């Protein structure tokens, strides 16, 4: 078990190194001269040179990558300023290192991801379970139709409608805004309610369909039939056997969705003007702020890799076939 986890963690590390190298290569090598992007219209050769030096791009690419990686662990000094560890680069637009910007934006994104996940897990998985248990009945048809409808929804369509009705029409809510949980938990909750609901809606459809079809697949499994054939009650068969089998797939999907949400729910944040990582990545792209884009990319990739490793650890807990090998 421990050996499995260590092996998995080492694997994750290798993947991260590979991803960082590829990302670095893509971002710094493909635009022939990244300095040009920051140099503006009346760019002179000497200005360009200074920028190169500031960016550190006057060095060969492998050295640049090496400095970048070392910087993550040891920090770096740029001519324009200090970048303490973990240094994911230095944003010239903001005149600050990238890492503090990311951590500053993270609470918004985490709040959005956690709240939205709770809603779509409860509603989506719950609906899927009900639909599977009552398959073929009216409630199944309603749930299936509803999930199709929600699955085809788009946030940039649903968000403004929700705002128009709930905020501007009925005045039930204030305009969504982020209030730190530590300052005002109730304000945090109310301020994010609409974004959570809208974000969850598009996931609910997918989770309902997935849960329903996974469970129905499980009902056909011989060991689930066997549980029935030995006289176990319907709820017992449903939860102890069918649900248990469906669980690992749902966890996998959730791990992927949650880690990508943590990397920034771009459209949701944009729609509700929330200053999270998603909004930051849009701003950075707008301004061609390469160090920031690179930093966010790497951060998101790291999240995905870490969550994948966490999912595998979950498997080991819930599946004896993994645990005991």
């Amino acid at each position, binding site marked *: 078990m421990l050996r499995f986890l260590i092996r998995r963690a080492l694997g994750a590390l290798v993947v991260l190194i590979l991803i960082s190298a590829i990302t670095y290569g893509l971002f710094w090598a493909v635009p022939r001269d990244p300095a040009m992007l920051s140099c503006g219209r009346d760019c002179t050769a000497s200005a360009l040179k200074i920028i190169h030096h500031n960016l550190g791009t006057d060095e060969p690419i492998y050295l640049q990558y090496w400095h970048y990686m070392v910087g993550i662990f040891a920090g770096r000094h740029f001519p324009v300023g200090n970048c303490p560890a973990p240094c994911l680069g230095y944003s010239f637009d903001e005149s600050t290192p990238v890492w503090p910007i990311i951590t500053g934006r993270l609470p918004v994104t985490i709040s959005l991801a956690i709240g939205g996940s709770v809603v779509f897990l409860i509603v989506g998985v719950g609906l899927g379970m009900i639909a599977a248990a009552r398959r*073929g*009945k009216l409630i199944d048809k309603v749930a299936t139709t509803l999930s199709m409808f929600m699955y085809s929804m788009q946030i940039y369509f649903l968000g403004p409608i929700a705002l128009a009705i709930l905020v501007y029409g009925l005045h039930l809510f204030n305009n969504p805004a982020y209030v730190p949980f530590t300052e005002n938990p109730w304000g945090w909750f109310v301020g994010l309610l609409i974004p959570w609901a809208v974000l969850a809606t598009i996931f609910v459809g997918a989770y309902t369909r997935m849960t329903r079809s996974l469970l129905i697949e499980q009902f056909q*499994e*011989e*060991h*689930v*039939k*066997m*549980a*029935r*054939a*030995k*006289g*176990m*009650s*319907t709820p017992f068969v449903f939860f*102890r*056997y069918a649900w*248990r*089998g469906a669980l690992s797939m749902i966890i996998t999907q959730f791990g992927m969705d949650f880690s990508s949400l943590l990397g920034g729910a771009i459209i949701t944040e944009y729609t509700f003007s929330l200053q999270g990582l998603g909004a930051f990545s849009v701003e950075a792209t707008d301004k061609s702020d390469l160090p920031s884009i690179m930093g966010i990319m790497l951060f998101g990739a790291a999240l995905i890799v870490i969550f994948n490793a966490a999912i595998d650890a979950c498997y080991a807990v*819930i*599946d*004896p*076939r993994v645990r*005991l090998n």
Partner: protein
Amino acid sequence: MSTMTMPAGSPAATGGEAFLSVRDLYVRFSTEDGIVKAVDGLSFDVQRGRTLGIVGESGSGKSVTNLTILGMHNPATTTIGGEIVLDGQELTGASERQLQQLRGNKMAMIFQDPMTSLSPYYTVGRQIAEPFRKHTGATKRAAHERAVEMLAKVGIPQPAQRVHDYPHQFSGGMRQRVVIAMALVCNPDLIIADEPTTALDVTVQAQILDLLLEMQREFGSAIVLITHDLGVVANTADDLLVMYAGRAVERGTVEEVLRAPQHPYTWGLLGSMPSLTTDVSLPLTPIPGTPPSLLDPPTGCPFHPRCRFTEHVSGARCRTERPELPDGRGAACHLTPSQKAELYAEDVAPALGEEAVEAAADAERAADAEAVEDQVPGSTDSEENEQ
């Protein structure tokens, strides 16, 4: 004595002593393509302490029949008609709750694939103990002890340790033993085994069948054994039911059916299935054609599109009139008894080996004698009992 062990020609004794009695069973599934007539007017009996083998090609309704006995079909898409009586209790109208009391307790099922019929998430001990606790109200501790006892009984070494293991830690044959332990934990009176050895190595197959028979001797259970392998039937079963297109087409004791089969479909099966009674050097010849669609089964005898002997039946009766299966020994075929014996002896048996030819010749003589006797009133019963 059962209906199936009576010599041919005896009046059928139905119901009464049969532990499981299936009468005129219909099972229909509504699907997108239409109504599947998976079981169509099937009747059979099983006695305590005896084993009924059911054979038939894939799709002939063997599994559906047995899942129906356990009441496992989705009532929303399944229509069930006829009667299933288990030890005096009518099952076709029973509620899910009543069925739950019976499943795993009075009747138990063993599925084909031991690799998939145990949940990978729970220890074998727990999976064996579950039905025992449910049906007997035993404590956790008592159920655990019972699980160890059952594992020992089915021949798993070191049962007190292995009871804590997960299914993937057992080999295929050992897993099927675990499944049998699970099925038998409440001493069921009826055991339905749906191809219990198909997924196992040949060497393990015999061990598992021996184990089943041993358990039967100990508990006096009735067994329904579904199989593709006539060799298994010959060694294990007492009675035999041959199914085709959701119907029973021939029945009798294993002896009777294997020595003197009466239905052209059974003849085809004998030539196409591995069997211990036939010569291994003889090639297997598959029955030409394919099993009929159960959405739209053929009229008359369902086997007529594939039957080589339709011209021996007068008129077009094979196509228009459904042959009935008599109670007791017999076959659902319009051929006369002497035609059956003659055609089998001359046309079919030679391809099945010497033993079959000899048996067929005996059967033919007996059938001729019977035919003569039918014309001579007042003949003795002694000849009849010789066959």
